[in-house]
């Protein structure tokens, strides 16, 4: 419940505050968001599996975000930023889908 409420509250705050993403953050924020989403779905799945651990969640959330942003940064420095971004998004997307499939099996037994 708490994460869902927090997510909703964050979205509402973002809509109300209308923040401008600082320039240095702009290339990394989309990737970071995707990585965080991956961590969230992983957490939901773990909760459904009954093995949720908040420390694991916090660490995976932060490390996901940092690693994703770092990979994009590295890609930008190497001149393959666009390709690496795509790669990261593909990998994270695959993980999100597999997590969602697992969640679906729990919720609908199908």
């Amino acid at each position: 419940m708490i994460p869902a409420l927090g997510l909703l509250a964050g979205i509402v705050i973002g809509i109300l505050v209308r923040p401008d993403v600082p320039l240095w953050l702009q290339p990394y924020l989309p990737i970071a968001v995707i990585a965080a989403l991956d961590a969230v779905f992983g957490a939901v799945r773990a909760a459904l599996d009954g093995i949720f651990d908040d420390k694991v969640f916090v660490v995976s959330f932060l490390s996901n975000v940092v690693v994703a942003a770092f990979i994009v940064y590295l890609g930008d420095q190497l001149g393959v930023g666009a390709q690496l971004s795509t790669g990261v998004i593909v990998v994270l997307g695959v993980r999100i889908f597999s997590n969602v499939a697992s969640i679906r099996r729990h919720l609908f037994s199908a």
Partner: protein
Amino acid sequence: MGASSPPPDRDRGSAGPRIAGRRIAGIGWPLATKANVLVLTLALLLGFAISAQVRQTRTQGLETLREDELLGVLDTVTQEGVRLGAELRDLERTRDRLASGADSELEAIDIARERADTLGLLAGSKAATGPGVRLTIADPDGRVGATVILDAIEELRDAGAEVLQVGPQRVVMGTFFSDSDAGVSVSGTALSPPYVILAIGDPATMASAMGIPGGVSESVRGLRGEVTVEQLDSLDITAIHRSDPPRFATPAPTPDPSPTS
């Protein structure tokens, strides 16, 4: 949170929806532990980041694009510019062509009108005006025949008459003269003396042509008639010859229909 209040059943895989619901509820049991606060903060951050990113994407300009993306945009714009330039030149050419076409069309219409005027005068389908002579042939004895009238016409033509009228009849290519009981008939229309011939041309030349020895005046005088020549500065020939379109003759195709005048 899950760690502080672990759900009783830990079987993985296909737990039923009821158990799953209980577990979901178990994640967020509001206990103000440090972990809960941390998770809440992270979720808040994530939501904030999502809405910020969505808004950013909607208002995105060129400044956030990467170098190769910018190059792509530049390429697209350049190609579009080249394409539009070519189109512009095409349209300008078309416009020029249309403008000059309109000019030459007007010119062609002028030429055609001029030609129609000339041919109308020649064929007798248009009234004519200009300097000329009025020739009156008095014939008290009724001895002046078609021959004399024809001679007079020929003499006038030799003297440069451009448009001729005998009595009420326009003289054209197909005009014929014949003798009739009352006098001379022109193209089937009977005339009676005195015969009036109108001719547009150089008045002095035509008048002197009438007066030459052995000419029209003299031969009419020999028939006890009298020829009067009036030189006029302005003379109207209003008789119109109506010609039917030819039944057999059609214009032969000419390679270059240059206007004749």
